[in-house]
């Protein structure tokens, strides 16, 4: 896992952009324009977030070491059993985890601003198209299983570009009004940031 040093804060815009790989010029330009201006506080927010993500990954990896490896299988029971076992192990290791464990309270405004600024750039039709697909009336609590009967709403790709990168074990998702972090292999809600997404515009 890459560790960001305080001196790297000034380089954060470059680091954020580096994820765009060799996309063509117009794409890079568009991405650069859509990146939030990173000031010291935002840099600190990203660093703190990264530190907490790394701490979570240690738990995730410890849990992975305690359950059988998941390999390609033609038995779906192996898939669901493994997902459940991994989830239960992580829940045990994180017993007592509270909202804000990864989205640190003091830096939550940074994340909320990224999402809300992104939504402001969208047309009403576009916002509505995103919001209507979000699972609603879903109980969102950390360290709980994401309901397997509910869809995982598409995460807007342009918004994804603006948020700090995540390791492959985790992903951002929008649920109702909340931004959540989800453990992909364990299907667990790892943290929740509430009241991020506005209601459907009239």
């Amino acid at each position, binding site marked *: 896992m890459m560790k960001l040093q305080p001196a790297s804060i000034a380089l954060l815009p470059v680091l954020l952009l580096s994820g765009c*790989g*060799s996309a063509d010029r117009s794409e890079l330009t568009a991405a650069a324009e859509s990146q939030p201006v990173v000031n010291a506080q935002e840099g600190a927010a990203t660093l703190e977030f990264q530190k907490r993500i790394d701490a979570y990954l240690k738990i995730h990896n410890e849990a992975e070491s305690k359950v059988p490896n998941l390999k390609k299988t033609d038995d*779906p029971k192996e898939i669901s059993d493994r997902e459940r076992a991994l989830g239960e192990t992580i829940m045990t290791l994180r017993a007592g985890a509270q909202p804000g464990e990864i989205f640190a309270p003091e830096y939550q405004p940074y994340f909320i601003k990224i999402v809300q600024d992104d939504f402001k750039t969208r047309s009403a039709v*576009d916002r509505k*198209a995103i919001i209507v697909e979000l699972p609603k009336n879903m109980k969102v609590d950390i360290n709980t299983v994401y309901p397997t009967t509910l869809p995982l709403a598409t995460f*807007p790709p342009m918004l994804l570009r603006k948020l700090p990168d995540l390791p*492959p074990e985790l992903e951002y998702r929008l649920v109702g009004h909340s931004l959540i972090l989800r453990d992909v292999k364990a299907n667990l809600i790892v943290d929740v940031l509430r009241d991020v997404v506005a209601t459907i515009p009239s």
Partner: protein
Amino acid sequence: MMKTDTVRTVAVLWALLVGAAAVQALSGQQRPPANAPAMSASTEAQAPIGKDSVKFLVIGDSGTGDKGQYDTAAQMWAAHAVFPYEFAIMLGDNLYGSERPQDYVTKFERPYKPMLDLNIPFYASLGNHDDPNQRFYKNFGMGGKRFYTYQRQDVRFFALDSNYMDKDQQRWLEDELSKSDAKWKIAYFHHPLYSSGAAHGSEVDLRSIVEPLFIKYNLQVVFAGHEHFYERIKPQKGIHYFTAGGSAKLRAGDIIGNTGLTEKGFDTEQSFMVVEIDGDVLRFQTISRHGKRVDSGEIRRTPNS
């Protein structure tokens, strides 16, 4: 490989049996209505033209486990008798609702049993109703990956995860597109970049990211689902877009008529596609739940693409 006559006989028997089996297998709200139309085993699918062409089946939004899926699956198998596709691509929403082990059976293994018995491989992409851990299920052919690529003769396929187009996937896509010297480049994923659907419509956000790459690297054809109907879009910036998300779910009457995007739309029955790539020509047929050929045509690859 089964002989053609045997395949055709099995297809007819299967088509007759699966309708009854489906009714028996289903319960509760999945049970088809008593007045559901009888399954027809006849198909208007036509034989492929090329002798050694790449032939495949296109399925989208299929994993309901209801009568619509079983009827359409029976037609897919009936079509195989005249159009022996070698593999199937899945456009996402492979399993709706719960994903218990028995759901893999009722929503995938049972309806497509004749194809699976014939070792016809399926290559799935993920929809918004799919747990990404489906990628570990061997019969979905994903090799444990959310996005992946493979080649058949001169055709390179890119199966993307449009639910979560992060930077890793973008980098991977550009890298793979740039490396490929295949004559044909085809992408498939769940969310349509262009759509006349009233329920969803075009995925503009996703389009702004992947379309420039498709254009830059001369990708010719895109298949998507999500919308529960069939739509062939007028070529956009040189790329041919198909939406085929009605292989079980159906959103009847959902195509908006005045978007200016639609070359051909079909939203009154479930459907699927069979496609053949024969040298520089791609030929497609779209078949309805009741075996009607509701669209067909060909796309010619231009020399510089």
